[in-house]
């Protein structure tokens, strides 16, 4: 319509003059949830990166003399960092500094989460693309398998697989990834079904592309957005699932300072009033998952506002 053309014509001038970085900044500013989520994640990722430099205590070294001490803060002020004797998150029943263990736990849980999502996203997208593009028998088989996987709540499925494979970190990653793969299969398949009807898919065929290039070089990169949004959501779930498995005694076992292990170890102390041993690790899990959820939520609003 002429009206839209006129109004839009002047708008073009505006958007092409803005470069990508400024647009990114503007997007962040306009979506408070995104900003909040990114801040949380920034803190968490900073901790993962800086890691041991943030605390002088060895997370594995036991010191029964100072066991179960409540949270205490450095007396000499932050300039000297954590001086000996200060435990901002208290100590556990082996005298280990909880903050140090939480920090080391981050260096476990976060990489686990990212690995899980990378695997699920990678395999799920590739299979979903194949399924959506070819249709027919391939599609039917993939869809039935996906249905089966979806029949189980993802946590239960991860539990079952971990129990089957054994309690190692890599098995945890595999188990949770398998539970998430169906989401990505379904999302990418849906997008591919739409994209393959577009002319550029035919055009790619027309210029001589083989099927695999049409699927993976032309179509899939254009269909990733919903999957990426789901991926940020899955990062949050993965933190919860990995911790959850560890809490139940599957996957990672003590004394490895994984967050779920910490919560599990600390759980027995709540009754005796030493709440800090499980509450702090639990809070950190929630905090991290919240960060991912906020980012995911706002990404979803940004990329698909009509589903709000």
């Amino acid at each position: 319509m002429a009206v839209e053309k006129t109004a839009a014509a002047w708008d073009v001038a505006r958007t092409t003059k803005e470069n990508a970085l400024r647009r990114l900044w503007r997007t962040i500013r306009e979506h408070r949830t995104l900003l909040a989520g990114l801040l949380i994640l920034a803190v968490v990722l900073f901790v993962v990166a800086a890691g041991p430099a943030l605390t002088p205590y060895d997370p594995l070294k036991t010191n029964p003399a100072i066991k179960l001490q409540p949270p205490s803060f450095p007396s000499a002020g932050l300039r000297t960092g954590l001086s000996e004797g200060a435990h901002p998150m208290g100590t556990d029943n082996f005298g280990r500094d909880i903050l140090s263990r939480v920090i080391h736990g981050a260096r476990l849980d976060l990489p686990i989460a990212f690995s899980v999502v990378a695997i699920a996203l990678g395999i799920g997208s590739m299979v979903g693309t194949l399924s959506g593009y070819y249709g027919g028998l391939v599609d039917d088989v993939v869809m039935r398998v996906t249905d089966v996987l979806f029949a189980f709540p993802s946590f239960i499925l991860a539990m079952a697989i971990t129990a089957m494979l054994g309690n190692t970190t890599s098995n945890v990653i595999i188990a949770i990834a398998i539970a998430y793969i169906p989401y990505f299969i379904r999302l990418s398949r849906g997008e591919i079904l739409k994209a393959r009807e577009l002319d550029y898919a035919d055009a790619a065929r027309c210029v001589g592309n083989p099927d695999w290039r049409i699927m993976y070089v032309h179509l899939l990169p254009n269909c990733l957005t919903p999957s990426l949004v789901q991926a940020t959501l899955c990062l949050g779930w993965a933190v919860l699932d990995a911790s959850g498995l560890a809490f139940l005694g599957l996957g990672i076992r003590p004394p490895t300072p994984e967050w779920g292990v910490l919560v599990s170890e600390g759980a027995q102390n709540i009754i005796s009033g030493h709440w800090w041993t499980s509450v702090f690790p639990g809070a950190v899990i929630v905090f991290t998952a919240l960060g991912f959820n906020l980012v995911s939520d706002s990404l979803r609003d940004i990329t698909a506002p009509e589903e709000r």
Partner: protein
Amino acid sequence: MSGLLRIEDLSVTFPSAGLRAGPVRDGRVTILDQVSFKVGRNEITGLVGESGSGKTLTSLAVMGFLPPSAQVTGGHVWFQGMDLLRLDASGLQRIRGRQIAMIFQSTRSALNPLMRVGDQVARAYQIQRGLNPAEAYQQAVEILGRMDIPQAGRRARAYPHQLSGGMCQRVLVAMMVACEPALLIADEPTTGLDVTIQAQIFELIKDVQEATGASILLITHDLGVVAETCQRVVVMYAGQVMETAPVESLFARPFHPYTQRLLQSVLRVDRAVEIPQVDMIPSDEVTYGVLGCRFAPRCSLVLPRCWEERPLIREWEPDHRAACWRLEIGDQRLEIGD
């Protein structure tokens, strides 16, 4: 000089996002620039121009459908003694549908997808003519039949999505007839329809016009439609009126260089024509930045004055008006070469 609808010096501005120079004054750009023309009684007037020429905007201004960001900065729209631009919301409400009706391009979205078409037409009768539901429905079926919809009784019970584009357009025309407006504005009513259906719709519109004596403002970019359907033509470019004339005069003796260019470059099916030389289209910033005649950047007969000063629209032949400095200085009026 009084027609049914008289638009006088209508100017409309839009906000310009981000642009600082060029056509921008106080953060706004004047899109419609002193548009003036009339729609006569009991005739079909064509409003012709390329996309972006302002023809749809003009019709929206008449109906009071301009988007909130638009601002009318001057002019009048005289209709039956009233200035539509100065009417309040309730005044416009009374006029719309009853006195002035509009058909849009996208027919399907103009019809309620949840109501059977027969009911929709019947409702028009109920509201506009005060008939009771039973009578209104009867009338609706009858009018659908007169619109050359076969098996009108059965079709009336269909929903819009079950009908083809051509059928939907006929339903809309039926609704218009039910309202018996004095003025009907039809904005590219056959976009997307097949040629044979298009022909049928235009025949229908002509018949309706003859039967009801309504005036029709037909907005189109197709000169063939104009030649076969309209009695008068208004030619617009970039928000300015370039020429107005009875249809025979316009085609036989186009005065304005833009009209001449349009007629020279039109392709025909009844004879093999050479594909015309095409020129570069200047950007909107350039076009809307011109203080004078906005066709200047593309005009092969341009004078320095054309850029600075807007030529006045003058009558060069009975009822045949054009705004061009070349005409003022008595220069050539090219006949269209065959």
